[in-house]
């Protein structure tokens, strides 16, 4: 079946199998491998992207369901070579180690801050509950999210 999806601002048209997941579409059809697959139960959040501005685990959505939507992935977050404030905060506060959960964690944080521009630590911890990290113990991810909220332009 044919899907028209805008990915990181660029219109895309593809023939896809009806069973194709959005994450497979992004990685294998569009060739954007920044979005990761870490589980098969929608538990880890490594595949989190924004669909029409809302965070979605792209392993729980079919590409067909995203027909007509606008998808933002980790590759589309930086603009003109400058990191998005959330990316910059993750860098400055050592919010990543191996980096495998990072794309999903950053996208979830962008979405969280859009909903809660001035979150408490508890808001951040609860808001990122759907994204697992095995390296950082979350401490510096939480710190980065709070710092990003403080910096201007943290909204997507």
């Amino acid at each position, binding site marked *: 079946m044919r899907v028209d999806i805008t990915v990181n601002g660029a219109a895309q048209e593809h023939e896809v199998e009806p069973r194709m997941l959005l994450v497979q579409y992004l990685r294998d059809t569009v060739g954007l491998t920044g979005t990761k697959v870490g589980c098969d139960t929608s538990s880890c959040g490594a595949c989190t992207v924004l669909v029409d501005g809302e965070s979605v685990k792209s392993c729980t959505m079919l590409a067909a369901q995203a027909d007509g939507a606008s998808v933002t992935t980790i590759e589309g977050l930086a603009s003109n070579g400058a990191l998005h404030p959330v990316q910059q905060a993750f860098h400055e506060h050592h919010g990543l180690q191996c980096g495998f959960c990072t794309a999903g964690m950053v996208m979830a944080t962008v979405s969280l801050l859009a909903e809660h521009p001035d979150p408490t630590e508890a808001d951040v911890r609860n808001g990122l509950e759907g994204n697992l990290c095995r*390296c950082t113990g979350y401490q510096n991810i939480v710190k980065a999210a709070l710092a990003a909220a403080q910096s201007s332009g943290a909204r997507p």
Partner: protein
Amino acid sequence: MTTVIGTRVLRREDQALLTGTARFVDDIRIPGMLHAKLVRSPFAHARIASIDTTEAAAMPGVRAVLTAADLQDDFETPLPCAWPVTPDMVNPPHWPLASGEVHYAGDAVAVVVADSPAAARDAVEGVVVEYEELPAVVDLEDALSDSVLAHSDLSSNTSYTWPLTPDPDAVERAFADAAFTVKERYVHQRLIPMAIEPRGVCVVPEPYGGNFTVYSATQIPHILKVQLGICTGLPEHKLRVVAPSVGGGFGSKLDVYSEEVLCLALARRLRAPVRWTEERGENTQATVHGRGQIQEMELAADADGRITAVRANVVADMGAYLQLVTPGVPLLGGFIYHGVYDVPAYSFTCTGVFTNCTPTDAYRGAGRPEATYAIERAIDALAREVGVDPVEIRRRNFITADAFPYQTSAGLTYDSGNYGAALEAALDLTGYQALRDEQATRRERNDSKHLGIGISAYVEMCGLAPSRLLSQLSFGAGGWEHAEVRVLPTCKVEVVTGTAPHGQGHETSWAMIVADKLGVAVDDVEVLHSDTAISHLGLDTYGSRSLAVGGTAICVACDKVIEKAKAIAAHQFEAAEADIEFSGGAFHVRGTPSRVLPLPAVAFEAFTAHNLPDHIEPNLTASASYDPENFTFPFGVHVAVVEIDGDTGEIELTRYVAVDDCGNQVNPLIVEGQVHGGVVQGIAQALYEEAVYDEAGQLRTASLADYLVPSAADVPNLELGHTVTPSPVTPLGVKGVGEAGTIGAAPAVINAVIDALAPLGVTDIEMPASPQRVWRAMRDAPTTAGGGR
């Protein structure tokens, strides 16, 4: 000049990872790539009656369906176990595909190769395997009794018994003369390492020359290369192993796996690139597990509560097969069951047994969390016997700061330490006395929230490892590390390291070390690693070894570069080599600081070779293989504070204080990150995680929906402090920090839980301390004073 070492340099690794441009194995796209999927046994123990691949082989897009019988000429040896801990250790052959019998649920019996992952997955369903189910052994003590055999062709489930009993009579005497004794039984549940990136491998035959490039999500590209050559019979020099960005390991990617060997054999057979990507449901069953031990821990003590002997007997779950270092994992803890305490008599014995469960192997800490848990639980039990505070019992027993280097009764030499200082720092940071006062107040008013404070003091062995010591332990390889430093003509520097980082930030830290040694800018140093075509020699990253051994190799190579540069500078100055000094990135003649030759001038001179002394070869490069003389011994004191709901058993970890001493810190930002992650993995063992099998050997926690990896909402903000006791073993004074947090955390948390419930008479809680277990402990407690309303 200012030094870079010790400063919080932001990581150079981040940019690619933060923008989605870093390449992990599954991100690599090779034209014409085929996709492998494995047919895995649904039974924990069964005889394979037949395998019919006809239907699967005829399915669209399928290139091959192969069983062990088809592949019998493709492998020279079974998968390796590099650590035969005793001469009589039993090691059943572990071939990439099982034949005859399967020994755990997830054991692979056939492999499908197809044009797409979907076609391969469909074909897996088309392979018809008939099994005759056999009784499975899951429980560790059942396994020890040999009532059911995990391998039908073995006469016992015991793989080996390894004793460390330097002076058995001294231990006997100490127990005979003891004023106090403690005898406890502790269970270390099985854990699933659960790196967020599952494993993956992609093997590419080069178009000519018979070479293969193996991309693998591995911690050990160098070791893997050697072992792939041995297993497949392919000449080692025709293999190139690349570990691209690797998404966490924690020991689970420190192995040689069936899928790596299979994909290489398949690429050779089919003359095509072959890739395999692990699904999470496979990862929980086909990637090694950790821990899985039952410990019997005994202390003898004198009338003052000073420990006179430690006797530990451990039964360790090997799982179904011995993987790369499976039998050696308990030994890594076997020397430190007396921990940070001055104990004159020591005895440790470990028995490794097979079960019909996923093989175990190294998991963050590997033996040391188990040892630390045993001694730190037991010393709290001793404090209760003696009737003193947990702090006081530790103070009485610490190896004192003036005793280093300290010869332990287990046979190690602890390099340096100041345990008392770490304890005081942790108590200060915690506000220990105020918490004890609050606890007393709460107990008086029968508060339904039980407050508990738990302490854990740990020491660990890092810097794996002196090769001669490894030989004494029958380990199949050495413990050195290799580095090459190349000062290029323009004075930019390339450093090649044999370490293989997967989140530890070596590119940043190693550049900092070189910048300080050579007086160049951090940004002028490139760190190359994890590709055996670039980094020819190395022993990779595990066991908190990389800085202490790999970092030291870089220092030694830098020293050689400086020595060579001094000879070149002396020639230019027409001075004696012995009179040349190097500081601030420049050479000068001692006593004549006005005559200066900066490093770039020497580097260019070495490149042009126009005017070198007779005995000096062109180019300013040097390499070093460094073999450490001793382990390093990081230590620390952790304090956990919990509140337990007297009605529900729910535990809230309200505070966590960690004071760690890893010697000198190269990059405190990275050190803290390592401690954060390590502590949370320890907390996870204490409170959340357990690989649960049913009696038939089915893993009940085979997904991230069932296996409780904590989220940000499940853990507190950690309060970190540190002390600095440099190691005399390493030139930088560093020790290692990758596993420290995990080693310290679990006993601190469990001691806090038991402390909270002490008024009820509770003296034991098994990990993970789930609300249900805590509630049951309160229900079954000898007294109900103060809780359980």
